[in-house]
């Protein structure tokens, strides 16, 4: 009991003494855990809305589309229609005529699939009105996600193939994936419009005695060169969930990146106070603490912070998830908050523990192994020497000379800073490309739904970018501060040898700017790779080169702003105080 109390007192004392560092550690672990929770929680969230919509609209088990000029030439419309009586079929609706028409509204020109219906309720695939009423000869019913993307409401007037029609209603369906904009018209109106120039296709909806076998049924009738295509309800569900699958992939990638950034940040923090920790270990050992107790104290402190970060991250993930898992308006209902099952919680907690233990294990082990006297007197990590950098720096202006030599003293810190900033830049570039794809998508006629889905993905990318940039900025501040503390003696010495405060500030800032420059240069191609890894189409990923290159000076400017204050504080610290203390 006394031992536990001692550990608690030491842990509490250290956390209280370095509140800001402790808080940052919690924030980093929380951000990583939250992102991981989101990506894990997104698994399966699309099932519920699709099932709900399918039940409410008496959705088909198999949807068929007769498109003789598109799919193939084998088979006639009569043969297609005869499949209503194929073995295993217990219900059907159709044939419904379909044609492609140009819809104009509010400056948009969009190619849509218009499906002809009559006033009778179909046996299978009964689009559910969420607003307005069903088709009239002068009205049109618009599929809900398309209506949202287009911004039309009941009572608005749209033009189809040049003819003005009122929006009579807005409805949802589970009969086909909503990658193509869909509207319903009175059959007679459709035939009148289609008669002008467009070809007619036909839709057929089937209910099977064994809905689970819908895939087998569709495959059996999608014969080579058939003039039709059948889609099972499982395929339709998969198509509808593509957007969320992309978001899930993006978040999974984001959580890995956040974990890397978090480890980099924690390593900088731990490295920055390695000397202090080692001396603390020496002090504890000097007053009788065993190596195992010392290790326990260090581990307990970091595990406590990791646990706090994990709990916060899980809570944030749970709260934020509904905003990211919205299935879109093509489906009914909402998946709600993803459930936090044991696997999700366990994996998130394990990740946090690994991050904390991996980053803090070094001082604990060092403390346990180092002799008490050495721990009390020796600097924890002697600076490193790099001949090439020292030779090169001698030829440079004083701020760069100092900056390069500070980098050379602690190359691992510079590497961690590069990793952290490069990840932030890469995510920003990937988001820039996503945004550009979205803009292209919106501009592309007939692709308005894809653009809306892309917009959701863009939204997730923006959130990830902001989180990563903020965490990278925090990392940068800590890296600068760690450099300022570590460089106290050399900078005080440089002051005594005639370096001006501006030169010292320049040196400390360039110790961050030079890795920042490398990170920005690495981050641009890494961002392109990240974009492609997220499953995006490279042919659409051509944002302006200048915008991408502008990321380099923008990154350096941001680093300059972030490091200016800590660097100035470091440069103005009284040199005599530092030189006298040793």
């Amino acid at each position, binding site marked *: 009991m006394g031992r536990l109390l001692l550990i608690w007192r030491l842990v509490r004392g250290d956390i209280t003494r370095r509140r800001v560092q402790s808080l940052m550690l919690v924030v980093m672990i929380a951000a990583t855990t939250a992102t991981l929770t989101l990506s894990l929680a997104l698994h399966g969230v699309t099932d519920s809305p699709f099932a709900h919509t399918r039940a409410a609209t008496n959705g088909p088990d198999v949807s068929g589309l007769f498109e003789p000029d598109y799919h193939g030439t084998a088979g006639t419309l009569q043969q297609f229609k005869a499949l209503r009586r194929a073995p295993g079929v217990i219900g059907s609706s159709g044939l419904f005529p379909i044609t492609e028409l140009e819809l104009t509204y509010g400056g948009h020109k969009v190619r849509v699939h218009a499906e002809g219906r009559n006033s009778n309720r179909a046996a299978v695939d009964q689009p559910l009105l969420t607003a307005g009423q069903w088709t009239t000869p002068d009205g049109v019913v618009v599929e809900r996600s398309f209506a949202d993307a287009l911004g039309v409401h009941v009572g608005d007037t749209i033009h189809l193939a040049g003819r003005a029609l009122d929006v009579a209603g807005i409805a949802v369906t589970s009969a086909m994936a909503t990658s193509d904009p869909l509207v319903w018209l009175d059959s007679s109106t459709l035939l009148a419009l289609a008669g002008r120039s467009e070809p007619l296709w036909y839709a057929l909806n089937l209910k099977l005695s064994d809905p689970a076998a819908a895939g087998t049924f569709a495959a059996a009738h999608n014969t080579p060169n058939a003039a039709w295509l059948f889609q099972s309800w499982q395929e339709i569900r998969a198509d509808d969930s593509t957007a969320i699958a992309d978001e899930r992939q993006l978040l999974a990638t984001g959580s890995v990146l956040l974990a890397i950034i978090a480890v980099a940040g924690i390593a900088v923090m731990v490295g920055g106070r390695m000397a202090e920790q080692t001396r603390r270990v020496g002090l504890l050992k000097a007053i009788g603490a065993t190596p195992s107790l010392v290790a326990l104290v260090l581990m307990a402190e970091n595990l406590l912070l990791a646990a706090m970060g994990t709990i916060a991250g899980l809570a944030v993930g749970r709260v934020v998830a509904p905003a990211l898992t919205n299935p879109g308006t093509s489906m009914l209902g909402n998946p709600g908050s993803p459930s936090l099952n044991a696997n999700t919680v366990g994996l998130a907690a394990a990740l946090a523990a690994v991050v904390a233990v991996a980053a803090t294990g070094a001082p604990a082990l060092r403390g346990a192994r180092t002799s008490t006297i050495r721990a009390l007197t020796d600097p924890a990590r002697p600076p490193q020497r790099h001949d090439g950098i020292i030779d090169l720096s001698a030829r440079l202006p004083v701020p760069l000379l100092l900056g390069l030599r500070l980098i050379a003293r602690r190359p691992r810190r510079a590497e961690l800073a590069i990793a952290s900033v490069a990840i932030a830049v890469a995510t920003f570039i990937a988001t820039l490309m996503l945004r550009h794809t979205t803009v292209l998508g919106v501009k592309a006629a007939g692709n308005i739904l894809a653009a809306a889905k892309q917009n959701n993905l863009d939204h997730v990318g923006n959130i990830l970018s902001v989180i990563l940039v903020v965490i990278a900025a925090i990392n940068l501040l800590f890296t600068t501060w760690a450099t300022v503390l570590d460089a106290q003696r050399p900078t005080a010495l*440089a002051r005594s040898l*005639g370096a001006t405060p501006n*030169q010292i500030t320049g040196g400390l800032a360039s110790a961050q700017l030079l890795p920042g420059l490398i990170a920005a240069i690495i981050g641009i191609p890494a961002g392109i790779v990240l974009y492609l890894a997220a499953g995006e189409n490279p042919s659409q990923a051509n944002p302006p080169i200048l915008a991408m290159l502008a990321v380099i000076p923008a990154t350096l400017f941001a680093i300059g702003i972030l490091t200016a204050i800590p660097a100035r504080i470091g440069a103005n610290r009284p040199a005599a105080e530092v030189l006298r203390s040793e």
Partner: protein
Amino acid sequence: MRAPVAMRTPMVSARGLSKEYGSGAARVRAVRGLDLDVEAGETVAIIGPSGCGKSTLLYLLGGLERPTAGSLRLVDQPLEQLPEAGLARLRRHALGFVFQAFHLVDELTATENVELPLLLAGASPHRAHKRAADLLRSVGLADRAGHLPSALSGGQRQRVAIARALVNEPAVVLADEPTGNLDSEATTEVLRLFEQLRADGQTLVLVTHDERIAATADRLLTMRDGVLVDETRLSGGSGRSLGAITGLEE
């Protein structure tokens, strides 16, 4: 042959110099209204017990600390009005520091440590290297030029630090307990160098609490509780071997 002390121009001139730390009950008056002149070519030793303010005085003279009150002139330039950048430039060209803890940069070789002030002053790498090599030769460390400080003895480190202090040909060298971390043999090595500096007419202000070292100076100032309490002009310093004066060698 050096000019008589009375004829020389003051290199350092302090009037009413004070330095206080903290405030209220925690206020510490490290230096209290001190007057001091150091002539060109003179070696002044300041002795006193630990905490008497002698190191603070040295840092004030070097512009590394700002005085709370009083005036200070270095090489005929008033320091109190100079901005930080101006003080830095003055240190760069007019001052050389020697510290008790050497304060060499651990990851730089002896040569690179000596080059550093020249590079900070904007000298070409070639010139800095040549000058550093010459100085290391003059302090007897030509064969240790490429060694890191960790591979040098205490005396060798201090000799590197002295070479670094001299590399910019400063008007004044300020030394804070230069032999405080050294054994007798290393102390002798360092004293020989100071003897050479004195012979060359280098102005030198030396803080120490080792009276044997202080005995090598032209003038000995005793400091206690932030004020100079005694001044002794030593006549033998320039005429005899330092080792003989201090008893560190036969």
